[in-house]
């Protein structure tokens, strides 16, 4: 990022969403969403297709009518206001640049609407372009720019009006992988430098984790979990969140509580969780399902000592080499489990699948049914 904006940093605005209901036609898409966005925070709305994340963003920006509930920005409820009166700037997935205008006209349009003089607009756009590393591009047609440059112009157009709130609707999904990495850091850096309140919609988990300081995981029109990237990744609140955050291996378990702690049983394997560990009390009793990531389990000898881990006997069904480690598909406890391991093992070998207990995310079987 070459130069700084002389008039920054500015402070972002706060947003409070209360009991927000949104429906398309007769179909309810958001079911009473409550969430606060603090000034200067970077929040990522994350979820699978159709979960309502884009609808929430469009409800904030005013493009989707709100059925009930309120959106309070700086003390004023804007839920009934049209998009042009909300003072939020949005960056669109398709960039949404105006092809009949130059870079100068695109970035300067918001300023023109605010009655700024031509000289003021030219000065501000010039500042913005050097801020975005596009100095001297004023008179280019936007159709002559590359994807990354268009994305910067779209960002510049949104930032030129000095918004308190920046809404990002999957702005990086049309860029190639390398430029996407660069833009992630640039957008985050700009947001922090200007102190904007940013709300970013994405379905890319890694993008959300690396850019945002808070994740909002959405599921079927409701918020499934709100937390820092670490909280959501390490302590998923529901089976859906665990699964969505990459814990895609599923083991059916039986949890038996006792005075000394809890016993986990899956197939022929058992493990003890001591009361002192703290986790035992949180475990659901009875039928449960454990979720874990590919990289937390290891392959061991089938007769190795379990120790404090869960050692599930299994058989190697398939092997691939994606680079660095081998990726195995293991049949264990009646399920297909994907495991990464550094050592090469032959197909058909009987092994022990070693999973550290603290890396298992365990939920009642009844709840897990809705996760997949």
């Amino acid at each position, binding site marked *: 990022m070459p130069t700084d904006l002389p008039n920054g940093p500015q402070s972002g605005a706060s947003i409070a969403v209360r009991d927000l209901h949104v429906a398309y036609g007769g179909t309810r898409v958001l079911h009473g969403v409550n969430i606060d966005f603090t000034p200067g925070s970077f929040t990522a709305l994350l979820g699978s297709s159709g979960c309502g994340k884009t609808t929430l963003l469009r409800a904030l920006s005013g493009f989707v009518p709100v059925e009930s509930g309120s959106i309070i920005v700086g003390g004023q409820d804007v839920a009934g206001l049209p*998009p*042009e009166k909300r003072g*939020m700037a*949005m960056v669109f997935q398709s960039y949404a640049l*105006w092809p*009949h205008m130059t870079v100068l006209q695109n970035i300067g*349009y918001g300023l023109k*609407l605010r009655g700024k003089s031509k000289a003021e607009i030219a000065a501000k756009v010039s500042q913005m372009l050097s801020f975005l590393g596009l100095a001297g591009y004023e008179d280019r047609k936007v*159709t002559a720019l590359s994807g990354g440059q268009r994305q910067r112009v779209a960002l510049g*157009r949104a930032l030129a009006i000095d918004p308190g709130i920046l809404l990002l609707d999957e702005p990086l999904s049309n860029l190639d992988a390398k430029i996407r990495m660069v833009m992630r850091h640039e957008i985050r850096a700009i947001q922090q430098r200007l102190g904007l309140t940013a709300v970013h919609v994405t379905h890319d988990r890694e993008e959300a984790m690396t850019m945002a300081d808070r994740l909002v995981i959405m599921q079927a029109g409701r918020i499934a979990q709100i937390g820092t990237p670490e909280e959501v990744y390490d302590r998923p609140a529901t089976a859906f969140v665990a699964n969505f955050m990459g814990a895609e291996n599923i083991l059916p378990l039986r949890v038996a509580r006792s005075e000394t702690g809890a016993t986990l049983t899956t197939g022929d394997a058992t493990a003890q969780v001591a009361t002192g560990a703290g986790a035992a009390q949180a475990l659901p009793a009875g039928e449960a399902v454990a979720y874990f990531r590919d990289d937390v389990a290891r392959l061991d000898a089938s007769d190795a000592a379990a120790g404090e881990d869960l050692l599930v006997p299994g058989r190697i069904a398939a092997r691939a080499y994606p680079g660095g480690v081998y990726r195995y598909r293991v049949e264990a406890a009646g399920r297909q489990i994907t495991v990464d391991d550094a050592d090469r093992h032959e197909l058909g070998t009987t092994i022990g699948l070693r999973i550290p207990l603290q890396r298992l995310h365990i939920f009642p079987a009844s709840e897990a049914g809705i996760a997949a």
Partner: protein
Amino acid sequence: MNLSQRHLGLILIAPGLMLVAALFLYPLCFSLISAFSKDGAFTLEWFAKAFELYSTDIVFTVVIVLASCALTGLAAIVIAGTLTLGENRYIVGTLKAIYRWPLFIPFIVAAQCMRTFLAKNGLMNNTFVSMGLMEPLQAMSFLDWRGIIATFVWKQTPFVALLLAGALASIDRATLEAGRNLGASRPRVLFELALPQVMPTLMVALVLSFVTMLSVLSVPMMVSGSQPTMLTVDMAFRINAYGDYATANALGVITYLISAGAAILYLKRGLSEGAPR
């Protein structure tokens, strides 16, 4: 491509080519020759006659058609803009359901409808009188140039609006939302962001309407019987009253030239749009 394939191609297009030749090229050549010749010799006599008798009508025709195009464009922009950016779904739904109807009504029927609507004791004046908006004595006939323009605009607006609404529906909707997001009202979004993106389509629709209006005989004949009138009526009059094909053909060539002017404007614009920037 070898010779037999080339022949096959020619044979395949031959029926179409012959139809064009017989129904368009032959009459066109015949008209041109007739307009420029007398007793086998080249002459501009028919043009001189055409200008002497009908120069007012030439200007009248161009003004009527241009004014109709301008008003048609404006009405189509309002309709297509409402269809694209309208937020009241009842208004949008109703408009969507009814705006195309005039497309299916022939010019001659439209002209007859306008006669009963715009006449001195027509539906429009009678309605105003019965509503108490004006006195019967104030009623006046609109069956003159205003009637022609009203009929043309009523008949051509759905066509232009149809093409325009289709073009507006195909542009990236986010480009319109981006404008509103930055604070632009809906009219500004329409005129500053949406229309410039669909200008080529609007121009095509208006050029086609221009040529269509130029060639309509029934409307000026039925709506406005008086002078001045449009060139189509003059041509019909030269032929029906005097059997004067030569002057009628000269008027026809003048009409060709006027529509060629519109076509050149359109092609020029098309070339500059398509040129690399």
